[in-house]
């Protein structure tokens, strides 16, 4: 019975993350447009975009190799698997033990590896510029992320997301300076990882400022749909990650009744909406940085991560 419910939760989660991801992107765009006093497209526009792209022909550059064609599916699959392992509305996922937080982040790293390679495949200068900047950002974001994981593992005694989430709901957490710092650092890393303002601009097509968009410039049709869906999924993943560790309220625990799962799902959607609103608000407040200011931004995240860890060494209760 427990096994069946765990499997069911896992299956629901796998489907839910894919279905909700474009909505999250749409909602962010909508809030952003409203904040700029624009009407903005409907929140369902990303679904229409993806369906339209899926139906279109692929226009493939002449010297694109098999890697270019396989990469979108691989990137999507890796992001999907990672997103399916983060507790969203319920803990106790069937396969949550198959990858801890380090492995989830590393799997996103694999997705990025293939995306950067795909950017290099056609042999255009824009693909190269995107890939080289993307890996530069990654070299700064990944150590910062590890130190954040280190802080969380010190507090919760585990790198396993379900254990961390369970610990965070328990009353022994309280307010901690280290967790606050880790939350700021994690938010900064999440912004960089998702190519959002001020690190990168998802709406831009001004060539010299692009990072993520430059890498995927040669993609079209169903391949582009996969890439876009993976990008939405990654945003959803990071918001879920922050939600399950810092606001783990109403997460359904294994063995709870169906109403607990429904509340969990409802709470999760609310959390996503709040996350999208905050993201849109933040993006309208800041301007995009020059590329070589990004190291300072991420360096600050790295230092915050280290500071949080060291605080925990001074006192376990900070």
């Amino acid at each position, binding site marked *: 019975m427990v096994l069946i419910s765990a499997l069911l939760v896992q299956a629901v989660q796998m489907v839910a993350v894919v279905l909700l991801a474009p909505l999250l992107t749409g909602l962010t765009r909508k809030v952003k447009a409203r904040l700029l006093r624009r009407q903005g497209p409907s929140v369902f526009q990303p679904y229409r975009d993806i369906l339209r792209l*899926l139906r279109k*022909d*692929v*226009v*493939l550059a*002449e*010297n694109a190799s098999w*890697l270019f064609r396989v990469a979108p*599916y691989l990137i*999507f*699959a*890796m992001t*999907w*698997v990672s997103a399916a392992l983060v507790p969203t509305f319920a803990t106790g996922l069937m*396969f949550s*033990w*198959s*990858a801890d937080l*380090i*492995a989830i982040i*590393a*799997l996103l*790293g694999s997705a990025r*590896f293939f995306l950067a390679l795909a950017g*290099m*495949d*056609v*042999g*255009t*200068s*824009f693909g*190269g*510029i995107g*890939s*080289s*900047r993307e*890996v*530069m950002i*990654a*070299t*700064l*974001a*990944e*150590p910062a992320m*590890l*130190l954040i994981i*280190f802080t969380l593992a010190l507090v919760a005694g585990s*790198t*396993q997301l379900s*254990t961390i989430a369970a610990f965070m709901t328990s009353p022994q957490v309280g307010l901690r300076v280290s967790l606050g710092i880790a939350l700021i650092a994690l938010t900064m890393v999440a912004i960089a990882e998702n190519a959002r303002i001020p690190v990168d601009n998802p709406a831009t097509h001004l*060539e010299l400022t692009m990072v993520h968009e430059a890498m995927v*410039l*040669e993609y079209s049709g*169903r391949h582009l749909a*996969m890439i876009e869906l993976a990008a939405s999924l990654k945003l959803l993943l990071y918001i879920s990650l922050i939600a399950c560790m810092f606001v783990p309220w109403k997460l359904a625990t294994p063995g709870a009744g169906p109403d607990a799962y429904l509340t969990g799902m409802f709470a999760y959607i609310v959390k996503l909406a709040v996350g999208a609103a905050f993201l849109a608000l933040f993006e309208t407040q800041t301007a995009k940085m020059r*590329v*070589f200011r990004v*190291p300072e931004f991420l360096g600050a995240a790295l230092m915050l991560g*280290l500071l949080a860890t*060291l605080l925990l060494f001074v006192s376990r209760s900070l």
Partner: protein
Amino acid sequence: MTPVLAMLLCVLAFLATAVLAIFIARANRSTSIIYGMSLAVSAIAFATALTELFASALPADPPVLVLPLGLPWLGAHFRIDALAAFFLAVVDLGGVLASLYGLGYGRHEHAPQRVLPFFPIFLAGMNLVVLADDAFTFLLSWEFMSLASWALVMSHHREAGNRRAGYLYIVMASFGTLSLLLAFGLLADPAGSYDFAAIRAAEHSPPAAAITLVLLLLGAGSKAGLVPLHVWLPLAHPAAPSHVSALMSGVMTKVAVYGFIRVIFDLLGGPTWWSSMIVLTFGAGTAVMGILHALMEKDLKRLLAYSTIENIGVIFVSLGLALAFAANGMGLAAALALTAALFHVLNHSFFKGLLFFGAGAVLAATGERDMEKLGGLIHRMPFTSFAFLVGCVAISALPPLNGFASEWLAFQAILQSPDLPQWGLKIMVPAVGGLLALSAALAAACFVKVFGVTFLGRPRTPVADHAQEVDRFSVAAMYVLAAFCLLAGILPGFVIDSLAPVTLSLVGGKMPVQASEPWLSIVPIAESRSSYNGLLVFLFTVFSASFTAYLVHRFASRALRRAPAWDCGFPLADPATQYSADSFAQPIRRVFGTLAFRARERVDMPAPGDLRPARLVVKTHDLIWDRLYMPIVGAVGFAAEKLNHLQFLTIRRYLGLVFLALVVLLLVLALWS
């Protein structure tokens, strides 16, 4: 027949092969015969070593075989314990695959008489180092291995730069052996017994232990490529033929790691916590500097050699952690860290061998090592490029391949550090963890560059355009290694279990048995703390990717047409407009290189009316070479200059000098007592 005897017979067979090679090297089929024989002998040796490692009832004290060779009062001691069996397996598996690769690649060799005799000798030397059980045999084998590899480095001695590489290598190798000699001199008990059993039993005073550690870091570290003793490695490893480069980078550096583990963990005993801080510092510095150097490099083989330095750093970080935990009696954590180190030793021998084989294949197909003259090889060398891609993913520590499994274990070991009592270590270990993550991320950047510039994009030169796929032996060797990279990545539990006897004998602890975990997960301590399942991650990824691709092709669209690249409307026909290795590394050079290499960029803009092209001038400095080695070179040159006068004296003055020296020595002796 005991396993030790079997291994020694294999060594003898290697030497016989070498002797045969001297006579038939110029003959027609010599390449096939010599590599075939090396392959067979390595395979037997590998099987023996593996059986020995897996023999569940390893005797606590494996028998020592003493042969009446070497020093008359000592004899030559040989022994295989769990540690030696593991490293013998690594060495001989490397030997098997390098020989297999050599069967095809060796045909391109224009001077086989310079390679064939030394190849089996090199394998014999590496086996002997691991088999040795006394200091004399160990050092002799170590020199044997160094000289054989030196001869292989010098096999293409007419090519530019190779002689300098060989010179630097022999100087550093001699320096390393000298350090080891002094270390063993300190370790031997006053009675002067040099066999390892006596050294192990003897008490070592703390100062002697400290000096031994430093000497070991100099001796084994210089062979392994620890920064700042690494300078010879990126010159010498690429100079050898590619299958030998693979052996030197993938296997010989591991023999150096073996030497370090054997002395520090086994012979010295009683680890101290501050010694771990030294090892951690060197390890973390090596990892980051090695991969930063690799990122700046555009010579394919030299880049791989620099990446070897990075991986050695990763291994030493894990070894340092193991020392720290062992010094504090945390057996389980020490076993975890040591397992991470040994697992990475195995992994690195897989993917570095694979990558050097791939680089050799590119070299054989195009004659180029400079990445900026390659490109687009994925179309012309499909088999090589796929195997190379697997190697790139594996070395970048990305799941689900093997590089990630060992780095994950290292991170899990780092997460045990809050339990350490010493404040210095407590603060240092998270910082080292950050550096480890930085080096892993930089490695991923580096190998995106390697694969992207060499194999993707458009060919930059005609040779790259006309490349042909290499022979089937080379391809087979690469695919065997690629399969190992995948298997060790998705089934890490079996590797961890087979390492248990090694950690048990060295740090007195072992990780929980992994094979009985459900779904073949790996669980270092407890499932609630952390677990990883490479198999499931791999299966999920493959399944969801193919499922999505099927759905999209079935229900959405499968139409495809080819058109010129879009490139924002400005597709330029010249392949030189692509991103090159240098331009790819430019953002990272600006972020890290200004500090690490004092990299400076300057735009050389012609004056108005001047018709010469504008240029971007980039200057980087190897600070370690400039600050550490150049003064030494200067001092040696100065001393040589001064002492040169002594060569041209008359006989009277020589006699006077001898007399003076005698008087001074006698005076010193008189005053001393």
